């Protein structure tokens, strides 16, 4: 008998259809993967199960667990189900915990709220659960606060909280998307172990096909509020029967057509760069300790080259990027662009600054929402002023180059999707014809199909304008697809560099090996056959 049986779940929010006839069932001791792109309704499916939908939502269908329909329960009964029968963890561990309560209290609360234990007893169980998720008592006493933990550790606390009452179903909504690959591997391992030990069912929501391939027994593919295909993971991956599934697979492993066109002449030279930050003083009058974010990095980027920089969060890649953009003062070493020194602040001539532009990760946060696209894209002209007519022509040309219409320049940024916004960001970087574009996690927030098209665009622009790219990412797959050479960074130092293929196929440094091993991969033989 199934653990939970969902039949014909449909959901409208203020009359807009969000889910349509979603049906699936989940077995105890199994992992059910729900994959799809953003907006496909994956998260809403889980929130509908928990009855935590946004205001104005109307739901039909049934979800039978232990012979009773969850959708028929009132709010009071549903509070008894949440955290008790069904546990849930979310994508963003940095904000998922209450910052003003200790981790012990937050885990214990799950037990106390359901009347399962007294506070003292609940704290004892909390200790047990934290041990179970790999947070030992010596380093992680119950009195720790969330801000004292890393993202991966916080996600472990969230898991401890969700499994405190041994729920029969655990829903994990993109539990590892915000984490580094090595941390992701550990968390997935932990979830797998919990399913095996506790015999619970796990519903894993993710956009990442490779993650699903390594953990799920059953998979359902969602598109526009419907499940278009579902079945046992290996069979579904091998067959790829539905057109949308095929499209999803093609996009996630997409490699844009591009040729290496690097010249010998260096464009960007970074020599022994050191950047330190002062930390808060430990005593009132002693010297302030410092953190070496970048510890003696050297690299060369040639004209027309696409250079990758990979590493986990906190490795110093963002600081290095900011230094290259002339936004960080250096304690030692030098950076030269086209032979001229890159300096922080106003000491850098605008013409030199115009030689390098940047595209950031967040397509939603990197534009002023009150300005029209024309003004946003024309922003870099303050480095090399032109008259208004020329500026408009150049904006039109730039928008055209990234596949948008000239007429889009009179719209506001909220009228565009995430992918279109990233195109606008690229248009803004292109407009003063820089020699180098720094792409800082520029495709990380995008869905796979959008990401595939942006990668194509980048490859195409590079060929047309002779651009050099510095491509910073934590995603090895993307770096592999778009770069000629790659640098691996760890704790402020470059630990390995070389041609991208060679480094990833035969990593020499132990850290690179660890990184490559932790990256989830779809087994090669599953993909060997052409889809049916």
């Amino acid at each position, binding site marked *: 008998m199934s653990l939970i049986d969902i039949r014909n779940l449909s959901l409208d929010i203020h009359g807009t259809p969000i889910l349509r006839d979603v049906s699936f069932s989940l077995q105890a001791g199994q992992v059910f993967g729900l994959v799809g792109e953003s907006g496909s309704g994956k998260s809403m499916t889980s929130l509908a199960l928990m009855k935590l939908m946004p205001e104005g939502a109307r739901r039909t269908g049934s979800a039978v667990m232990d012979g009773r329909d969850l959708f028929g329960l009132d709010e009071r009964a549903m*509070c008894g189900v*949440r*955290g008790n029968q069904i546990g849930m963890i979310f994508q963003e561990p940095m*904000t*998922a915990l209450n910052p003003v309560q200790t981790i012990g209290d937050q885990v214990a*609360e*799950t037990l106390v*709220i359901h009347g399962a234990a007294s506070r003292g007893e609940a704290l004892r169980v909390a200790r047990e659960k934290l041990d179970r998720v790999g947070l030992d008592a010596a380093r992680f006493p119950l009195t720790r606060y969330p801000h004292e933990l890393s993202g991966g550790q916080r996600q472990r606390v969230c898991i401890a909280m969700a499994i405190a009452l041994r729920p029969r179903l655990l829903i994990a909504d993109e539990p590892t998307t915000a984490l580094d690959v090595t941390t992701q591997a550990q968390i997935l391992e932990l979830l797998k172990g919990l399913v095996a030990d506790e015999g619970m069912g796990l519903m894993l929501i993710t956009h990442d096909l490779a993650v699903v391939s390594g953990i799920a027994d059953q998979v359902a593919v969602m598109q526009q509020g419907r499940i278009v295909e579902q079945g046992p993971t290996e069979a579904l991956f091998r067959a790829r029967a539905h057109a949308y599934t095929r499209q999803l697979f093609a996009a996630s492993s997409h490699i844009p057509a591009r040729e290496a066109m690097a010249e010998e002449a260096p464009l960007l030279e970074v020599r022994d760069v050191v950047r330190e930050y002062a930390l*808060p003083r430990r005593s*009132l009058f002693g010297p302030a300790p410092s953190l070496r974010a970048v510890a003696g990095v050297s690299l060369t980027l040639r004209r027309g080259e696409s250079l990758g920089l990979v590493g986990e969060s906190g490795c110093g890649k963002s600081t290095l990027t900011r230094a290259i953009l002339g936004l960080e003062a250096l304690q030692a070493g030098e950076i030269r662009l086209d032979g001229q020194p890159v300096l922080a602040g106003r000491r850098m001539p605008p013409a030199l600054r115009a030689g390098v532009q940047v595209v950031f990760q967040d397509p939603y946060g990197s534009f002023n929402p009150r300005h029209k696209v024309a003004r946003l894209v024309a922003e870099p002209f303050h480095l090399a002023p032109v008259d208004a007519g020329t500026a408009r022509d150049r904006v039109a040309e730039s928008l055209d180059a990234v596949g948008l219409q000239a007429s889009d320049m009179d719209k506001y940024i909220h009228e565009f999707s995430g992918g279109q916004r990233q195109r606008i960001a690229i248009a803004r970087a292109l407009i003063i014809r820089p020699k180098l574009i720094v792409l800082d996690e520029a495709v990380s927030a995008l869905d796979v199909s959008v990401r595939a098209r942006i990668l194509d665009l980048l490859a195409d622009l590079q060929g047309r304008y002779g651009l050099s790219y510095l491509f910073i990412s934590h995603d090895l797959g993307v770096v592999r697809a778009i770069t000629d050479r790659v640098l691996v960074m760890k704790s402020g130092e470059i630990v390995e560099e070389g041609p991208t293929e060679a480094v990833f196929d035969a990593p020499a440094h132990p850290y690179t090996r660890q990184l490559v091993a932790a990256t989830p991969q779809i087994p090669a033989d599953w993909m060997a056959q052409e889809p049916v």
Partner: protein
Amino acid sequence: MLRYALSRLLSLSLSLVVASLVIFFVIEVIPGDPASYMLGMNARPETVAALSRELGLDQPIFTRYLAWVGGMLTGDFGTSYTYRVPVGDLIAARLGVSLPLTVYALLLTIVIAFPVGLIAAATRGSALDAGIMGGTQLGIAVPNFWFAMLLVLFFAITLQWFSAGGFPGWDRGFWINIKALTLPAVALALPQASILARVMRSAVIETLGQDYIRTARAKGLTSRQAVVGHALRNALIPVLTIIGLQFSFLLAGAIIIENVFFLPGLGRLIFQAITQRDLIVVESVVMLLVFAVIMVTFLVDLAYAAVDPRLRRRA
């Protein structure tokens, strides 16, 4: 935690020193002789010279500054020119009215604002919320002297539950004075409670949108448990800031209400000292208010740290 408190105390003491310098020297740089300024245009030269000597104006400026500060530290604020009594006694008597009134009004403010703001946040978008928002809007808009007069008309004249004004003095017993301060405290609390309730509402609504509230709901907390258990404490930071500002405001800003109820408070003392050019009293009261504001800031800083563990380690 201790280091945080000490470092806050250190920086606030520095503000106090700077404030004393500013207050002293601003009064010093007023063109002309403070003595003749205090005595007015038609004073006789002998009178001015006598007052100068009495005020110690013939001493060098730094000596006078040190004497002033040293005097304040030992409780000697000098002698009021107009009242002919030690400024310290004068202030102490007025503080005996203003401080209890401020604390009383602030307690009322908190007791009203917390539940009202919470209920509005918990029922946001409902008719109740709209009613509360309308009511608080009115509470801010209504001038407090007019509201005070309504209170007098209704409770003092019609019902005769309270006296219409005056202050018996603490030697006459505790409750009789509390009773005398009740109507003024209510009049003072109404606009402050309206402001605080609105701040509380928006702070709670903002925390309700946070991810950890969703986590709490997923654990099985009811919506009310999530508000009380998780949203409230996180919403306290902006609320504490406002409470600190309100205390400082009420301590010296109650002059209109003091006039309506014939209360001998600090507000009226300042007003009289300014109109009578009693610079010694003005200097001392201003310094005292600065001290009060800084102490309240310190207490609010400690409260922040008590509420939010992330602030405790920061020095």
